[in-house]
């Protein structure tokens, strides 16, 4: 690929794939090679960066802020946001901090950076400056380097996180963490299956083992950093259980590298009960599997994400999903919510529209007043269902790896035991097909080769059949395609006037 930096092999093929922590000396060599891949890498020095992190006040450190949010039962807000130039990014982050009252301020990288096409990213910066508008869908963090990051961090009064949907995170993570970001989103399984076409699961896992190991290295220098897993996957009708399977596996991989502050992200199903059940099941299952592996000290806050599928173009209609997104996160007991804007269906939001989405969400959180659904029969039913699905598949994955999470995962994807809906990746079977049922919950229409227990699948099927019957459509894969569009439809189709 033109502009791709791949001259040096950053993974010396010395060690076979495993979930073991990367040994210190090997990691040092890997880091040296990695940092040599682009000029700005030279500026990175973990000792110096750790010292810098120690100068940051607690309210600008995401690990501390998240621990406090969990202790106080708060739900924090966080948008996405990135523009091509430092000036635009500075203004954006300040607007999100001040007008949006974001509790966590993001820096989304552009898609060239995500694919390590730094030459193209550079052209994007230049074009953006020439035309006076952002031609990139994010901030080219590697091109700008460590000191630009520190300038961005200096401009806000909140902790900052790097959002860089990629299976090639090694330079953005190095520069982001050294630049004063206290959180980094991404994981080997989740991002490889949803953001790449040719990258192998093994490669993705190895790349994120590097990032996790890097966070652990900072920990060794006395600096706690936040790592986070994007369990929203392809954002497209993801059943909670499939998201949580990836959460558990990526989490175990991170824990093995030494990470102790690891967030899990779940895209909303847009169902009050199912989303609350998902958040609770995720939290409990993560700790359950950590305990099985002997970890009792890993902090695992759960983040809920505003609807990740296709949005309606009508801004009034979209506003409902924004407010509801705050409600779902708060009622579900998520520690933070990642927000969208009324521009979602069309394009990257202006800083103002982004800030409005944050405020609508924040107000929705305020009026949720800590309501919880525990004890509601339908909620307990969903929690149980999700747990049965996750345990069946994850246990099978672990078996396939003879206890090694990395090996098991690679084999499980090859066998279709792990599968992801609507994946662009050629290594993922993507035979599993979910759809929304008659009660509004996301169910599995076709499990492909995933070992979901038969009695569980009968529940899914029954609920989907009811929908097909109610709408007089065949019970087939069209249900899955319809579900992809569904919420982007105009209200005249979603909820037509009543014929009395």
């Amino acid at each position, binding site marked *: 690929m033109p502009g791709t930096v791949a001259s040096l092999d950053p993974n010396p093929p010395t060690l076979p794939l495993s979930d073991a922590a990367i040994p210190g000396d090997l990691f040092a060599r890997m880091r040296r090679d990695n940092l040599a891949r682009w000029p700005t890498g030279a500026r990175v020095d973990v000792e110096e960066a750790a010292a810098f992190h120690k100068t940051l006040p607690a309210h600008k450190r995401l690990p501390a802020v998240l621990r406090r949010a969990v202790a106080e039962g708060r739900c924090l807000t966080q948008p996405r946001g990135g523009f091509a130039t430092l000036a635009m990014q500075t203004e954006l982050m300040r607007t999100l901090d001040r007008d949006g009252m974001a509790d966590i301020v993001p820096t989304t990288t552009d898609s060239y950076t995500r694919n390590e096409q730094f030459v193209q990213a550079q052209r994007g910066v230049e074009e953006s400056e020439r035309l006076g508008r952002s031609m990139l869908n994010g901030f080219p963090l590697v091109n700008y380097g460590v000191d630009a990051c520190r300038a961005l961090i200096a401009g806000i009064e909140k902790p900052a996180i790097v959002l860089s949907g990629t299976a090639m995170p090694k330079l953005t993570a190095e520069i982001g963490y050294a630049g004063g970001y206290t959180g980094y989103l991404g994981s080997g399984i989740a991002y490889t299956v949803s953001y790449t*076409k040719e990258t192998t699961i093994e490669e993705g896992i190895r790349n994120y083992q590097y990032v996790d190991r890097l966070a652990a290295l900072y920990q060794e220098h006395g600096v706690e950093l936040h790592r986070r897993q994007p369990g929203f996957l392809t954002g497209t009708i993801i059943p909670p259980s499939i998201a949580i399977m990836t959460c558990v596996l990526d989490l175990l991989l991170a824990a093995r590298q030494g990470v102790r502050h690891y967030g899990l992200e779940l895209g909303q199903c847009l169902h009050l009960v199912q989303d609350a059940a998902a958040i609770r099941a995720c939290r409990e299952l993560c700790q359950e599997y950590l305990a099985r592996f002997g970890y009792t000290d890993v902090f695992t806050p759960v983040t809920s994400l505003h609807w990740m599928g296709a949005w309606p173009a009508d801004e009034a209609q979209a506003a409902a999903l924004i407010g509801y997104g705050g409600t779902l996160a708060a009622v579900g007991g998520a520690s933070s919510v990642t927000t969208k804007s009324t521009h979602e269906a069309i*394009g990257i939001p202006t800083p103002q529209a982004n800030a409005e989405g944050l405020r609508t969400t924040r107000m929705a959180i305020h009026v949720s007043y800590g309501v919880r659904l525990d004890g509601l029969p339908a909620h307990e039913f969903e929690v149980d269902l999700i747990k049965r699905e996750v345990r069946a598949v994850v246990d099978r994955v672990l078996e396939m790896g003879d206890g090694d999470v990395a090996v098991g995962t690679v084999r499980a994807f090859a066998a279709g035991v792990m599968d992801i809906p609507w994946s662009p990746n050629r290594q993922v079977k993507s035979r599993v097909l979910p759809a929304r049922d008659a009660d509004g919950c996301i169910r599995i229409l076709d499990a492909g080769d995933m070992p979901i227990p038969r009695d569980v699948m009968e529940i899914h099927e029954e609920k989907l059949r009811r929908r097909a019957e109610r709408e007089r459509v065949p019970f087939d894969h069209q249900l899955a395609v319809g579900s992809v569009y569904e919420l982007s439809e105009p209200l005249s189709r979603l909820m037509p006037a009543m014929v009395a």
Partner: protein
Amino acid sequence: MTGRTLVTGVIGSDTHIVGNRILTMALEAAGYRVVSLGALTPAEEFVRAAIETAADAILVSSLYGQGELDCRGFRDRCVEAGIGDILLYVGGNLVVGKQPWPEVEKRFTDMGFDRAFPPGTRTDEVIDILARDFGARAEPVRSAS
């Protein structure tokens, strides 16, 4: 079967495969032979595939906002490769941010696309317009290589 061959794919570093896949499925159901290149497809691959399969049209998807950079010179590539008159569509969320559609459309037709489609275009509409454009061209159906 229409006897026509189409190339589809998502251009550049763009992973948004869902709409492209649904479009591909709909085009196949409408009787087209579709060569589907999937996500993250460089511009030159589209052209290569079109030549190899003697395609009648290329349908480029771009959702992630950087399409304006990725699509520059697409028609020129086709011309250089000797398929300068191939029908070229582009669709998706073509630019960064909410911009007035007529301006965006013009930018892409100026690049040489026969048509550009705004965010959220439904497959039925694409199939209708495609049939009309092929009808208007009234070209003989090419045979695959």
